[in-house]
């Protein structure tokens, strides 16, 4: 086990309200006055991060993600528990904090770098790199107000990450910006990780959690609901988003150690699911681009107005490679009776990169699982793809190609 760079132990944050603000002041002088209201937004959060590990924090709005980051970054103090950090910590809670439009790029770098605790001489030493990363050219010595927003963002990111921190904390800041900026900043973050920087990332973007993080924390109602692989945490988070009052979320540990999440009202249920080859035989390994059929048998437990089957095929990291549903495909079932069975067969080519895949199914009433979810089942089926007859290729999916070469 490598060295721990961050340890949060029993962290809690409460916002206190007093009957009168003077009571609060009296409290500073030691008067024993209890606050009129103590609202705990986070409670009992404990986790540890190793050097080089990257952690994504997910959760609904108001779950306490930003508060947690602020406590780790040190701008907010916990009311309970402790955070201990080792090494240099850099936090990007908002890009371009402390920038002033009237100052030049260079002056802004000195100012905001200074605010982050860098010494002037350190900033001077990093200046060339910052100017290069931000790609400002002649604009560097002109006022910030004439910069494009892309330039401002690159400059802000460059200042914040000019020196490799041991712990890098990022709050949604990278969701803004054009795709060029996003690629550039991701590249920088990846190179930090390779050099041993631990990353803590809050994001609403599941794809960035999946691609950047090797672990995820789910916060729900101020508590740490789950700490695990991004795949299992995001599956559970999805279920949480769709959960209605009184519904249970089940999780099972599968044989390979992965965690399956099942949620929904259970008014309908996937009974059997299989992947069939061209001859109709169930298989668990298919060749690249082979025609296959996904067969799903559903049992309905209660009368429901409408039944839609959705499915998504996910890569090993949990990224959805392809997904759709029977509503989009024009075949929703209306007025389904209690006890009825339905069989869905989806034919598709296995146009995937060799690797292992999982299928998630959703039985819902409309086009998304937020409307009314009867059953949401992650890791409902696993299969592998191998390349048997196709020429070697690279990427995230297979495309049938036709090469024509003319010589001379």
């Amino acid at each position, binding site marked *: 086990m490598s060295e721990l760079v961050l340890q949060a132990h029993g962290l809690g944050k409460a916002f206190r309200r007093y009957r009168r603000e003077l009571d609060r002041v009296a409290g500073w002088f030691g008067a024993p006055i209890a606050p009129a209201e103590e609202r705990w937004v986070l409670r009992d959060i404990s986790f540890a991060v190793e050097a080089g590990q990257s952690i994504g924090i997910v959760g609904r709005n108001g779950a306490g993600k930003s508060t947690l980051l602020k406590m780790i970054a040190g701008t907010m103090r916990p009311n309970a528990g402790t955070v201990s950090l080792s090494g240099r910590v850099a936090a990007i809670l908002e890009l371009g904090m402390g920038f002033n439009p*009237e100052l030049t790029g260079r002056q802004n770098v000195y100012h905001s770098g200074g*605010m982050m605790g860098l010494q*002037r001489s350190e900033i001077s030493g990093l200046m060339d790199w910052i100017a290069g990363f931000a790609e400002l050219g002649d604009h560097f010595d002109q006022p910030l107000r004439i910069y494009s927003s892309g330039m401002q963002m690159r400059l802000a990111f460059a200042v914040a990450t000019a020196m490799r921190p041991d712990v890098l904390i990022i709050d949604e800041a990278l969701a803004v910006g054009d795709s060029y900026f996003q690629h550039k900043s991701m590249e920088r973050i990846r190179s930090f990780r390779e050099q041993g920087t631990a990353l803590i990332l809050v994001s609403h973007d599941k794809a960035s959690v999946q691609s950047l993080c090797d672990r995820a924390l789910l916060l729900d109602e101020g508590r740490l609901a789950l700490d695990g692989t991004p795949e299992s945490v995001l599956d559970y988070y999805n279920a949480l988003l769709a959960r209605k009052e009184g519904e249970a979320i089940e999780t099972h540990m599968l044989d390979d150690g992965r965690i399956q999440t099942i949620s929904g009202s259970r008014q309908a249920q996937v009974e059997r699911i299989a992947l069939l080859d061209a001859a109709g035989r169930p298989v668990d390994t298919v060749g690249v681009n082979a025609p296959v059929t996904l067969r799903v048998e559903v049992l309905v437990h209660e009368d429901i107005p409408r039944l839609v089957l959705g499915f998504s095929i996910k890569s090993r990291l949990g990224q959805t490679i392809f997904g759709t549903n029977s509503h989009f495909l024009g075949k929703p079932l209306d007025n389904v009776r209690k006890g009825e069975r339905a069989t869905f067969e989806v034919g598709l080519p296995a146009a995937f990169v060799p690797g292992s895949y999982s299928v998630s199914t959703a039985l819902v009433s409309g086009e998304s699982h937020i409307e009314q979810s009867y059953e949401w089942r992650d890791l409902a089926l696993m299969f592998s793809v191998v390349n048997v007859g196709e020429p070697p290729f690279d990427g995230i999916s297979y495309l049938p190609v036709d090469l024509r070469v003319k010589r001379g």
Partner: protein
Amino acid sequence: MNGLLKGAWRYRHFITSSIATEFRLRVARSRLGILWIVIAPLMQVAIFAFVLSAIMSHRLPGIDNRFAYSIYLMAGFVAWFPFIEIVNRCVTVFIENANAMKKIAFPRIVLPLICIGSASVNNLIFFAMVMIAYVLIGHAPGMTILWYPVLFLVTAALAAGLGIVLGVLNVFMRDVQQMVAILLQFGFWMTPIVYMVEIIPEPWREWLKLNPLYWVVENHHRVLAYGQAPDAVSMIGLTVLAAMLVMLGLFLFRRASAEMVDAL
């Protein structure tokens, strides 16, 4: 308390460069640039020295000069301006920097320090203008001018202590900044700056002396207008008061800093 000092020391370059930045921003995109920093106090002094003296050319007891009233007035303002500038800026400094305090971890004590520093520089420029005016109107300062740094330090410390106390309270009770605006107006007229204390009827005069600023301004009068050393007793009293206010300010700041970000 040690932590506060360490943080401020670690950020000393940031404090000085922020003060420079403030001045730079004040004159950004103006043609005359840095000249404006001097022109504004220069005009103020010119009004005090020449315009007011033309209207009110009374000779004041103790100052043998046609510009006696101007000299008196400028000495009073040399005391008053830095005081109110420091108090006013400290009162709102945490609120104005709310976002930075929430998003960046840095020693918060640098915020009031930057305000105090920039107000000090600003008022030293004003002081320099006043000195030039004094020379021009034939009131060249004597050796007692060497007392001025002491006066300034005590004044700035009083203002800083009071300002930090009020600034911390203002985060939680925004009424403070409204009250401060009114009280400073009131304080201006309760202090002999534009009038001489002799015009106040005897029984009321003693009441004015309860106002610490009375002593601040009177000592400035002694040093700058009358060419005397400051009054020792009142200087000691003011120093003790300033030290107490600074301690109280830092105490409140330390106690409140955990909750400040929550309330902003």
